[in-house]
């Protein structure tokens, strides 16, 4: 019995040694739970057309505001459209916009942050612009831009990208300023490496870990902001389903059809909760302090 236990612990430690990063990933409950929720929503987004029994725009006036049933799992809305199908497509649109905004904001934010950490004059100009954009409450800025550009899906992406570039740029800049002072950058300069080379191949990879954590939060906040915008009628224009504008429709029928509010709402919560859990977990996972602590403990044990 005892020997068996011993071999078990040995095999466990051996596994841990083989791939410590993976072991830490799976031992991080927040990260795993978040990853599962995100994976589920991605699956829904990808397979939305296959899962949905009805078209997202398919109107059935005879079956308006029908409660959940065997045919319409989540009931129908005020046009008789299937709420389940619309929710699946809504998840798809929310994730697509979230992903597009996150990618655009990350790439541009990374460029702005790196450039301003490297060139002093650019730093002054770019950071003042970022401060100015940052001064706006985010929904308000998005509303203002949307009101100027007009209600279109592509404009939602432009507006939200503009809103979130400064927060990424700031994180990248502060991390890059630390990297810039490191000896290896000085050595590269002495070897005659070009500025572009230093920025792209040596500074950029070193700011990735704080960036990744920020990116998951931006993803979550983008989905929330898009939903709020659509809920206010300044986001994804009807009839395209987004979780936000479905809730807007739900508000109008809140006395008669609770299902129009509850089901899309639950999906927003699941997506955002997944991203927040993942972000918190990732922060713990990537935090060099945690790694150092564990190493120190190990050393003490030896």
């Amino acid at each position, binding site marked *: 019995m005892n020997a068996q236990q011993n071999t078990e612990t040995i095999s466990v430690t051996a596994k841990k040694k083989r791939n410590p990063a993976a072991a830490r990933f799976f031992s991080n409950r927040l990260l795993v739970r978040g990853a599962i929720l995100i994976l589920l929503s991605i699956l829904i987004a990808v397979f939305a057309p296959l899962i949905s029994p009805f078209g997202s725009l398919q109107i059935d006036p005879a079956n308006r505001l029908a409660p959940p049933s065997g045919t319409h799992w989540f009931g129908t809305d005020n046009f008789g459209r299937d709420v389940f199908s619309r929710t699946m497509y809504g998840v798809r649109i929310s994730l697509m916009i979230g992903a597009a905004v996150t990618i655009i904001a990350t790439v541009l934010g990374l460029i702005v942050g790196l450039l301003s950490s490297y060139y002093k004059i650019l730093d002054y100009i770019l950071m*003042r*612009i970022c*401060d*100015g*954009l940052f*001064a*706006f*409450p*985010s*929904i*308000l*800025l998005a*509303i*203002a*831009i*949307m*009101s*100027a*550009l*007009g209600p279109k899906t592509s404009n939602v992406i432009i507006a939200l990208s503009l809103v979130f570039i400064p927060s990424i740029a700031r994180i990248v800049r502060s991390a890059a300023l630390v990297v810039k002072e490191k000896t290896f950058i000085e050595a590269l300069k002495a070897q005659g490496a070009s500025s572009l080379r230093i920025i792209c191949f040596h500074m950029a990879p070193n700011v990735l870990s704080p960036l990744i954590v920020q990116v998951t939060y931006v993803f*979550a906040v983008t989905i*929330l902001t898009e*939903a*709020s915008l659509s*809920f*206010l*009628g*300044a986001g994804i224009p009807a009839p395209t389903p987004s979780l936000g504008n479905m*809730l807007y429709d*739900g*508000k109008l029928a*809140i*006395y008669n059809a*609770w299902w129009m*509010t*509850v089901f899309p*709402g639950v999906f*927003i*919560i699941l997506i*955002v*909760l997944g991203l*927040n*859990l993942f972000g*918190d977990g990732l922060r713990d996972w990537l935090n060099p302090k945690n790694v150092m602590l564990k190493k120190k403990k190990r050393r003490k044990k030896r």
Partner: protein
Amino acid sequence: MGAYTLKRLFALIPVLFIVSIVVFLITRLTPGSPAAIILGQGASPEQIAALSKEMGLDEPVVNQYFIWLSNIFHGDFGYSYFLNKPVLGAIWDNVGPTVSLAILAQIFGVVFALLFGIYAAKHKGTIRDESIMGASLLGISIPSFLLGSFLILLFAVQLRIFPVSGYVPLNAGLFEYLKYLVLPTITLGAIQAALITRMTRSSLLDTISENFVKTAKAKGLNERTIMLKHTLRVSFLPILTVIGESFAGLVTGAAVTESLFNIPGLGQLIVSSIERRDYALIQGAVLLITVAYVVINLVVDLLYAVIDPRVRNSYHD
């Protein structure tokens, strides 16, 4: 302290400059002439030209910006042709409900957060702590309009305890006023509560392990005195920052909450002016709210420096 305040005030100038440019550009980004939009589809080209001249739209863009800016410094935020009154007047008429809502939500958020944050920190690692932290994570993951919709469904539609929507001013009686504001306050305050709870807990836990707390324990002080008089006081700095930041965020959260509960506040005003494409009003409201947001953040930073001298000194480096 005076030098620090002055420095912070000077740092605001470029920020406000950028803000003003962005707000100014909002109307210039729109396809078509603002004058044509105001007059609607039935307007003749002569009418559009006349209004364009009245609004100064025939000047070069840079001149237009400076004219607009100088008008704002004179307190002229433009005229809302839809509401038929000056923008500043329209905003002033709608500011009351927003401020009521923001203050009530902040009180709700802070009281709940301190209670739960302290409780969670005291019982760290137990099921009580984990459920509070889980609830607060859920709190920051629920969009406020969604929480509001759920609250309406439960308390207004099913249980019929509170009204579904609407607003009654304070002079109609305190009870009526509060009855209409309970659900909006919870809706808006829940996120504040969640954010501040997380900060309170982590800040308290950082402080609890410090030596002076151990000394206090060794002296034989009771738990309550240590928590309230020693630990909480030291941990209050980061908590104060979050409260300040979240108070600024309340102003925007109010836009969504007001729209949901049909409260005639600033948020409602902005949303309805988007539908009407009332650019003067959108510009004025966005500008004023952003300036208020910047000023609140500044006041919080200054307060922070008053309490903690290290902040003041670090600015010199």
